[in-house]
């Protein structure tokens, strides 16, 4: 690290090098935080969806299985010990405005934290005013809404892509206040939709018909391409239908640069696609347990040397090297299924929510910085010693 610092001072190397090295180190050392957690929200129940706002990277929005919504502040750590992210506001499921059933997707409005959108199994998409905590608008659909997404890079449109039980994807124009476009192409329920992070008109969708389609919303005819897991070299000729997976596709994620797309299917596979060519890059990540019927949140890191993808694997989180497919780490902490994870790109922290009603904080292990800090702090001394005592071996002498 010192070497990087000096070389940066002398200007002998790219200034981003230090940052990249440090970020990589921190990501690689992610582990379950022993001392920091997120205030538990009774509104949530099972945690289905998480999102961090992209303006300040400060507010964590979470949607729960019982219809509640909560917002945590990731900057403000109250109290001396700075142990807990406080919940600043929440919408309990008992509220008249809240979703009647499970919330499946939540998303901040990409340009302002004054607005966020949620959707769920009660077939409603709601647009919320954050400050009033009241829905500004609400759209009803014919089927369960599995996923919706707003383009993070759009400047020319404010469309929400909605994937629901019906096979058509609807695009809702917030300015018009109704859906403006329908995208037909899937044969079955659309489990996940994602806008490209590169091109504001490109949309990807994964469905339970095993297919992943890429759309250009300017093109009226249909999808621009259907991703084929065999790259057109299918062994059996009779199978003309292009499939991305051999199971439902319930996870989608563009890389930060928008050049690659990661899909996750119930065939326990993760696939990396080139968004330009639509080719399967055939990276083998191994088998990752996935039997979900709804969308799973997967996320990709930014700004570090090898991109890392974080995927829920049943009750664990897996960290993979995106381009090589090697497993970096297994994060164990949840019980039961993990539903979603979001990566905080500034702090290199990871937040994950699962069916055990927890939102867990994964921090880079900081070489016992925290413990040293506590050691100095005399108030915590007794607490600290007891914790040390708990980690020691206690072989009693009578065992001899």
């Amino acid at each position, binding site marked *: 690290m010192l070497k990087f610092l000096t070389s940066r001072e002398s200007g002998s190397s790219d200034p981003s090098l230090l940052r990249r090295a440090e970020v990589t180190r921190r990501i690689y050392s992610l582990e379950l935080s022993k001392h920091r957690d997120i205030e538990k929200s009774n509104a949530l129940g099972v945690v289905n969806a998480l999102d961090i706002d992209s303006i300040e990277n400060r507010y964590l929005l979470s949607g729960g299985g019982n219809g509640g919504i909560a917002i945590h502040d990731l900057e403000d750590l109250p109290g001396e010990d700075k142990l807990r992210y406080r919940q600043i506001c929440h919408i309990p499921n008992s509220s008249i405005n809240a979703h009647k059933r499970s919330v499946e997707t939540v998303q901040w409005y990409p340009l302002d934290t004054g607005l966020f959108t949620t959707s769920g199994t009660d077939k409603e998409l709601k647009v919320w005013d954050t400050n009033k905590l009241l829905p500004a608008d609400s759209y009803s659909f014919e089927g369960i809404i599995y996923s919706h997404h707003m383009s993070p890079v759009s400047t020319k449109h404010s469309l929400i892509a909605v994937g629901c039980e019906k096979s058509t994807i609807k695009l809702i124009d917030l300015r018009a206040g109704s859906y403006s476009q329908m995208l037909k192409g899937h044969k079955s329920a659309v489990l996940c939709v994602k806008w490209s992070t590169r091109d504001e008109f490109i949309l990807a969708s994964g469905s339970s018909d095993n297919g992943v389609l890429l759309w250009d919303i300017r093109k009226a005819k249909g999808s621009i391409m259907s991703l084929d897991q065999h790259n057109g070299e299918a062994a059996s000729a009779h199978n003309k239908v292009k499939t991305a997976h051999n199971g439902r596709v319930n996870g989608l994620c563009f890389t930060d640069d928008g050049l690659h797309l990661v899909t996750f299917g119930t065939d326990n596979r993760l696939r990396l696609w080139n968004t330009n060519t639509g080719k399967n890059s055939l990276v083998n990540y191994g088998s990752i347990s996935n039997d979900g019927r709804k969308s799973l949140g997967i996320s990709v890191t930014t700004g570090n040397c090898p991109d890392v993808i974080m995927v829920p694997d049943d*009750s664990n989180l897996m960290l993979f090297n995106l381009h090589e497919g090697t497993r970096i780490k297994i994060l*164990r902490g949840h019980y*039961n299924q993990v539903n979603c994870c979001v990566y905080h790109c500034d702090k290199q922290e990871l937040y994950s929510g699962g069916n055990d*009603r927890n939102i867990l904080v994964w921090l880079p292990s900081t070489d016992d910085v925290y413990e040293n800090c506590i050691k100095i702090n005399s108030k915590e001394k007794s607490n600290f010693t007891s914790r*040390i005592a*708990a980690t020691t071996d206690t*072989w009693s002498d009578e*065992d001899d």
Partner: protein
Amino acid sequence: MASTSASCLDHNLCEEMSEYIEKITLSGQKTVDESLMKKLKKICRISDIYVKHAYHLLMSTLEKDHAEIRLSCFKIIDELFNRSHCFRDLLVSEFQTFLELTVGINHDLPLPAPIAISRTLRAETLKSIQQWFEKFGEAYKKLVLGYNFLKSCKMVDFNDIRNRTLAERRREEEIERKKRIVLNQKLDKVLKEMTDMVPEIETCITEIENCLNLLVPKPDDFFILNEGDTDNDDYINHSALQLNSSVIETERMCTNNSEDPSGSKNSETNDNMPNESQVEDQSGENSDADSDNDSDMEPNLNDQTAFVSDFGLGTRKYNLDIKISSDNFVIQETEDNKDIFRTLHDSVQLARKKYLLKFTKWLEILTKAGENDDKVKHLVDLKSKLKTLVDKSVEMKLTKEAVAIESDEDEDSEFEEVPEKEGYEAEVPLYLLTATEMGLKEDPKKKRGRKRTVKDWTMGNTSTSTDDPTSRAANLHKLGITDEHNQPSTSKTKHSKSQNSIPIVPFGPDIECWENQDKIEKPMVLKNDSSIWRPAEFEIEKDSASKHDVKALTTRTFHYPGKFVPVSWSCRTPLPNGSLCQRMDREKCPFHGKIIGRDKTGQPTSENDVELKIKEQLLKTEGKMADWRDHELEKDIEGALGIDLGSSSSKGKGKGKKKNKKYENLTDVKEIKNTSRNRLEKKVFNRTAMKRVTSRLDAADYKRIRDKFGNQFNYAHK
């Protein structure tokens, strides 16, 4: 502390470890064997890598589908979890699997049978998790998460568990406290009793001691007593005597045959002294002493010279060597020491029946209370003292006499020591009667002799018969003829004895009718199967008794008089483990067949045997592969029928046995399912059986219908 210094696993230790784990988990007991557990912990202590190995072993064991295995396994896990940080780390990282296997949080994977055990497993695990959480929660985040998960998602009520454990603890404490109180009360009572009784006991001890001292002087006292021998009058008939030349000190003792049931008459018989071994001598010198001793003797003692000559001694200036047989030492009771005996007896009885029992009770309570060490010591001392004294007095038969006196009091000894009835004449068998002559023994001074114990009465002791006027000895006495006949008479007895020992064998009808065999009476068969009167001719039936019956009468069995010869050879067939069969059979080894000559390596020596063996082996292999039996086919058939035809019986027998042995301590889960209902269901709902029954019923129905309505159109066709 366990160090991580050892970097590689020792294979032997690992195997040992898995062996221990297997032993513990297959024991089927609810508690873990402490010694095995200690051994296991000792291995784990060496290094963390052993802990890891143990963890993997345990987790794989935990997956077994048997609640008992899981329970024992969980107990080991609990132990190690409390000990090792490494183990905690590992377990916590796979905590969900652990919970699935022990608490059964996954509905798809319910806990295995037996249900009762799996319930305890669940309860115990939750209890432990509660404890773990309290103890280690701070350091292991995932443990806390798991705890919260169980609490919030699986609705496990930990508060209840904690409360319950608290309540349990309180209840235990309460019970303990009550016990303590009761014990204290007991202790107080005992201490009170002790203060009352200990002085009593001490006096009793001194009493017994004194009595014993009086009755049995210690050898040191003898010489002193010689001077003033009037003092030792109390020791009556056995007291120390001195002949006037006084070179030898003699002690006279009374052996068993000195007692005489009719001692009052013995004044006439005191002239037959020379009986060797048992001598009763009274010194003429000590006549004054003797006169006190024995009133019976008084007439004799007056005339000392006569007395001496009565003993067959010319003068008194002989040295007398008197052998004392120590094993039949009995102190006689007389008028003078009667009181001492009585007191001794009383106090010994008291000690035996009351004090010693009390002592054991007291000691029990005192040791339980765990206090008053010096008191316990004191008690133990007292007890041992009393015990030795009582033992001593019993051993010396000092009390026995007394026991006999008051036999009505002493119910315990009634069956052992029966006092002879007054005027009881032992019935002397004929052949023994002559022996009385040699057993002649005078017992001059037994007034109380009739109160003897049975023990004193032995077959050899025939001295009584001298007193019996009908006995030959008595007659001889009268005539003054003495012992010349002794020798022949003994041989005679022997002869008569041997005559008596010849067994008498009853002779059968064949010998009875030796000369005319036809006359052997056939056994009569009375056909008495009803109580109805019948004419006499029916009795002729006895003629028809078969030859068989006659034969049964005429045959005799003779027992083989030969001697048992132990087998001196062993089978010595080579065993698969390299040794030779060590069974020692006369003709045939149950495992290896007929015993044949073999050389050192166990190979048969004679060629015939070799050939036979080869043939046998061939037969065996053929039997195994019996050509008409096709194992696979049989198995298929069995699979289809669901019935065991025995195809596996010949093949996997050994294996099956072994398996059973391995799991014999565990409850058989299959056995639980094997209920009578299940077995019946299998039979009743068997497809073929069902088909058969329905077709029968259908046929019956059809027949009935056809018979009744056969001519109707509706039923014309089936």
